């Protein structure tokens, strides 16, 4: 099965462009409420977590998930990044990703 897919890195501003698609988000955990989390990735994103997610408030997190029509994210995988995340650098990567889209995103 030739399954070409990509999970481009995005921040809050790009959510609307990827509705229904798989994306990667690096951000800071602002709030945790049961299965729901609020993430700050250059803007606020609501994430619906899965069973394996063990996040801590104020830590960085990398989420991979699908963008819902209401611009929240259904999280499929999460990685706790701890403290000391350089969010400026992470956002810079997102900017570069979109500047050179063909390198990073499969359009189908």
């Amino acid at each position, binding site marked *: 099965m030739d399954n070409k897919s990509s999970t481009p890195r995005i921040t809050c501003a790009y959510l609307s462009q990827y509705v229904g698609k798989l994306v990667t988000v690096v951000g800071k955990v602002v709030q945790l409420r049961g299965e729901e989390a609020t993430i700050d990735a250059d803007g606020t994103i609501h994430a619906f977590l899965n069973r394996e997610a063990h996040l801590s408030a104020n830590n960085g997190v990398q989420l991979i998930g699908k963008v819902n029509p209401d611009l929240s994210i259904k999280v499929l995988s999460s990685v706790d990044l701890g403290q000391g995340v*350089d969010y400026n*650098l992470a956002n*810079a*990567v997102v900017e*570069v990703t979109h*500047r050179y889209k063909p390198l990073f995103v499969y359009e189908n």
Partner: protein
Amino acid sequence: MAGQITQGALDAMFNDPDRAQQQFPVPILQCLQIKTLDSKNGGAGATERFRIVLSDLKNYVQCMMATQTNHLVHDGLLQRGCIVRLKQYQAQCLKGKNILIVLDLEVIQSLGCPEKMGDPQPLGPRSAEPQQNPNLGSTGFYGVKSEPTQDTKPQFPRQMPSRNASGGQGSSTIYPIEGLSPFSHKWTIKARVTSKSNIKTWHKASGEGKLFSVNFLDESGEIRATGFNDQVDQFYDLLQEGQVYYISTPCRVQLAKKQWSNLPNDYELTFERDTVIEKAEDQTSVPQVRFNFVNIQELQDVERDATVDIIGVLKEVQEVTQIVSKTTQKPYDKRELTLVDNTGYSVRCTIWGKTATNFDAQPESIVAFKGTKVSDFGGRSLSLLSSGTMAIDPDIPEAHHLKGWYDSSGRNNTFATHNNMQTLGGATGRKDDTKTISQVKEENLGTNDAPDYFALKATVVFIKQDNFAYPGCRSEGCNRKVTDMGDGTWRCEKCQINHDRPQYRYIMSVNVNDHTGQLWLSCFDDTARVIMGKSADELMEIRETDETRLPAEFEQANCRKLNFRCRAKMDTFGEQQRIRYQVMSVAPLDYKMEGNKLNELINSYNQMSM
């Protein structure tokens, strides 16, 4: 979005500045047009000036951008249609037309660049509109050709290169220093002498002479002025540091020789025989010092040899030391200080001469420096220029801000330094350029007489497993190869000692790759230890005890991406000449720093392709 624009601001700014201050302290306007002005009479160093049209939906007005705002256009931030915040301006009426001089402007990027909003009308000169405003008198603006009528506040009319008109200015009107240019024929400035140099004399084949120079400061900016020969006699004693003077034409305005000045002005003044300098009765209306601070974190973006002003909390003060200059054999007093600020970074600053010997500020006081040179020694460090000045606990807002920050949180902070900017702490001061492997080969590094040093970011791909270490002498400082005597002892010929065990030292060949090629590097004991994660002795022991584990050890060390600092040298092996690459030091990657470096590289690609 139209709601964001401060409608009616322009009218107020020109016709009722008091109301403008109260109602529209920071006007928000739309930029309708941007034009570059070619200064045809400019000659060699014509300054680029931009003319823009700003609208508040009700009116529009022509504006001149002060050169310090030019970067907004250069960076592409200011474009047609975008919404801007006018932070500092001067509203004037020249030749019957209202002109706005933009001294500080901020683009509100989040609002984008919409189409022209509203239907703004030109903001006609005051005389065309009926004034309901009683404050008329004190805020009136007078045209260029005018009436020498004095008003209570000094005027700041500005000559613009393209409108190089009649040039006639009443000598009672005062120019801002920022407005001085070779095109202004008649002007008076009111400024304070911030520094005065000693009289310098020179003797050359072409003649001899003397000169002195001063720096003048007013609210708009600073400019350097020099007096030669006769003017030294005329003005040297008259001009005192810290005093305010009126300086009037004739006085030459020329392009500045930047190597002699630490001021950002494009121009400088030269006194002439008829230049008029008078002491001002009012000594207070001119600022004392003007700083353009860079915070310590931003220093890493400043080029070496640039001149900056800096303010910080004094964290450490060293003792005064004396060094003798190798070139002139003269002794110099120096003292090193460490400054920190609220960006979380620290930097060393060196002061010289009297400033160093007489330095008595206590740690934790706020020190501001004007005119420090940036060097890349140890990443980034500062040196106070002889033309620079230092102020301890100055009464300026930045100082209070820093004091507040330090008292509340800064005191206990640990501070980052820029030391990791040079790829591997080159305290030797050698410039390590980071190269790719293809660059190392193409540039034939190592073929010159002197060895070439470079930095490399690469991945270990293969480690040669045979002969990775040799038995070395155990004596302190001696690394000579010892010979196995056969009776269990190892003899070092240099030290004449027999050891019962050798100290194995690495002599390892590693093959590293990056995206451009591969290179064989040789590592000695200390660097190989970092790569393997074990000492050579330990590794040898594993080889003795359980040989099967050995490949696993090498496997583990393999495929690691590291920062190497290398030396390339030509070596002769019998008849063959080969370039040998030796690793001087190796360090793991600081991902954040490397990430930021890559980001900058990508950004520079963007700029090049534009």
